[in-house]
């Protein structure tokens, strides 16, 4: 597929842009933070997104979606990224709907995907057990019991875990932490007995949760993917999550860069605009190149999913690593080039830098993805 948006995708992007700029500027995130909103997002805004059909973008029409593809979802995430908009679209649609589409039985798909498309359910992936992304490093056990399965273990950094209706829990049936074999993805009711959810507030003003499972009950046929072979579907889900997150990061990068260039043109020191100094101008030009390369890898990765290419994993690691690094660079330069004002809470700059760091730590930092890319490429 060509690396340009088609007309429909461009229209969706324009519409999302107008909506987000109007309804969810950065001040909306600031308000959520200042109010200490327990949900971590604005439910009224989420309802409006539901009415626009956003939760159903990637879901096939037969399950109540609009089948607009990952590139369609990507442009919406990119527009949301511009203003750092918080919503359950990442947890529930990008990850939750993808998981169901990739690995649920027909019965489960029919039951759940229309609910997601209609914005009636929030789904969260309970994966991580340590502070750094390690998808196979799972100690949480899923073992058979008289009435199905029991799950015990501790999960951390579960995105939207504090508001989820259903949890996709990565648990180990056999083997040791670190093994790729032996994992199963159980679907667990967030309100079930033995599930203890503790909300955590992150630096980027978005919420997550630590979740303890103490013999929570699960069923052998309420799963995603295959039993003990859950890593296969988990990798595919995570690649979609990484690519979608990269699209969101791209939007934030664009604003951070545009804002910085504008400041270089207007801020006067020594009687001239600071952008006339080569020490800053060359750094801005280098950033421009990094941003252009970032646009290309995101578009390529999104179309890799839509075209069902066999190199989705490479495209995902390429996109996530590059967007991590570019967002880090641009947000740090944004602060430095703004000088003292960048250190104040009143400016939005800090929000972008905090989001850059949390996003980078989500689903694999750059070192993780360089290692993975090299392995996939056979070296």
């Amino acid at each position: 597929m060509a690396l340009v948006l088609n007309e429909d995708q461009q229209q969706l992007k324009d519409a999302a842009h107008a909506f987000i700029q109007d309804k969810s500027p950065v001040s909306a995130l600031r308000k959520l933070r200042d109010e200490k909103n327990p949900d971590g997002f604005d439910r009224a805004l989420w309802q409006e997104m539901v009415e626009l059909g956003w939760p159903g973008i990637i879901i096939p029409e037969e399950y109540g979606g609009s089948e607009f593809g990952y590139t369609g979802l990507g442009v919406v995430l990119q527009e949301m990224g511009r203003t750092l908009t918080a919503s359950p679209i990442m947890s529930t649609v990008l990850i939750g709907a993808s998981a169901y589409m990739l690995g649920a039985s027909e019965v489960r798909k029919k039951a759940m995907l229309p609910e997601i498309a209609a914005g009636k359910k929030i789904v969260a992936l309970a994966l991580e057990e340590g502070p750094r992304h390690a998808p196979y490093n799972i100690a949480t056990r899923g073992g058979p019991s008289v009435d199905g399965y029991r799950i015990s273990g501790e999960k951390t950094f579960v995105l939207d875990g504090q508001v989820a209706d259903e949890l996709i829990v990565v648990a180990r049936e056999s083997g040791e932490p670190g093994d790729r074999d032996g994992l199963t993805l159980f679907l667990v009711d967030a309100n079930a007995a033995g599930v203890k959810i503790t909300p955590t507030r992150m630096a980027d003003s978005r919420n997550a949760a630590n979740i303890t499972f103490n013999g929570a009950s699960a069923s052998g046929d309420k799963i995603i993917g295959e039993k003990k072979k859950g890593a296969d579907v988990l990798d595919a889900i995570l690649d979609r999550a990484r690519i979608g997150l990269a699209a969101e990061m791209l939007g934030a990068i664009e604003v951070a860069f545009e804002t910085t260039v504008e400041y270089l043109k207007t801020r006067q020191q020594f009687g001239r605009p600071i952008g006339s100094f080569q020490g800053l101008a060359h750094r801005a030009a280098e950033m421009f190149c990094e941003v252009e390369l970032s646009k290309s890898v995101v578009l390529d990765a999104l179309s890799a999913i839509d075209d069902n290419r066999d190199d989705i994993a490479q495209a995902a690691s390429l996109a996530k690593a590059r967007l991590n690094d570019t967002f880090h660079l641009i947000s740090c330069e944004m602060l430095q080039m703004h000088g003292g004002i960048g250190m104040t809470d009143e400016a939005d700059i800090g929000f972008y830098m905090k989001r850059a760091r949390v996003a980078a730590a989500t689903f694999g930092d750059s070192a993780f993805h360089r290692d993975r890319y090299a392995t996939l490429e056979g070296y």
Partner: protein
Amino acid sequence: MSDLEQFRQETRAWLEENCPPSMRTPMPEDETCWGGRNAVYKNPDSKVWLDNMASRGWTAPMWPKEYGGGGLNKDENKILQQELGRIRARPALSSFGIWMLGPALLEFASEEQKKHYLPPIVRGEIRWCQGYSEPGAGSDLAGLQTKAEDMGDHYLVNGSKIWTSYANFADWIFCLVRTNPQAPKHEGISFLLFDMTSPGVTTKPIQLISGSSPFCETFFDNVKVPKENLVGELNKGWTIAKALLQHERTMIAGMGSGPGGGGGSGLRSPSVVAKKYAGEADGRIADPALRDSIAAHNMNSRAFGLTVQRTTDEAKAGAPPGPASSMFKYYGTEQNKRKYELLLQAMGTQALGWEDSTFEEHELSITREWLRSKANSIEGGTSEVQLNIIAKRVLGLPE
């Protein structure tokens, strides 16, 4: 069958008949065909291949037929390139006339000049060199001092150029000269063509750190140039110079975006080379720090390749041409330099041999190519000049 499919069939059949078998083998550097009056064909098939391709105008496939070109549209040219690639055909002709001068003449020259100069370029009969840089005008190219005085029926050229690629082999030169010393520097420059055998022209090769001498100093001592050899308007040569520089940048950036978008293939691929020289453990490059550096480099190359592709796709979709050439020149050449640094890092002393038989031939070439790559970010506008262009013309940062 669609017209394009028919074109492909015909092209394939024609190439089958007209591309000599030895022209489908990897090309040693000393068999590169540059054409020209004094061309020496080490392999006689090179001349056959050049003449066959030139007879179709396919050495310049997209130039109009009336000027000797192939008259192909974009889609047909793409098919031609694919079919050439399919049989691994060598380039029939390497030519600054085709890559740089021709596009500028098509845009700026008079009808008479196009008819006169373009067909011999297509046929590889005249080899051109570029007279741009001067000892005192490098990055500040518009500061050039070589002057052309109006003597009534001719111009009299005096001065010198430097870094003139292959001037010692060239038949003609396209040259920037100062025709109005009083005007602001960009407004007193003209674009002149003249024969290198004109009395008063001398060249002197410059030996480089890589041991080769692709560049010359070129001296002009009272060289008489006919007035009809002026391209475009008098004192408006800077516009032509800039357009031509864009073609040059695209050409140089291409050096860093070969197979795999600058990742390099075979014995120029850092990952292949690292496994061979630095060792392998469980299918991985044994040195984890080197492996990480190579992955980072290859990922940047892939991202760069995708950006070239995206720019092409956007142009096809009708987007206005972006500032691509400066970004590509900057990023592509820096990336090519990094590739050679990684190759050296992986190969250790085996990439530091100068001559003698204890080294493989490709190892000795990597030493030389590494040194040659250092010029990539200087020639055709330094990296710093490209960053200036991006900052000012793309981002609109103030002077």
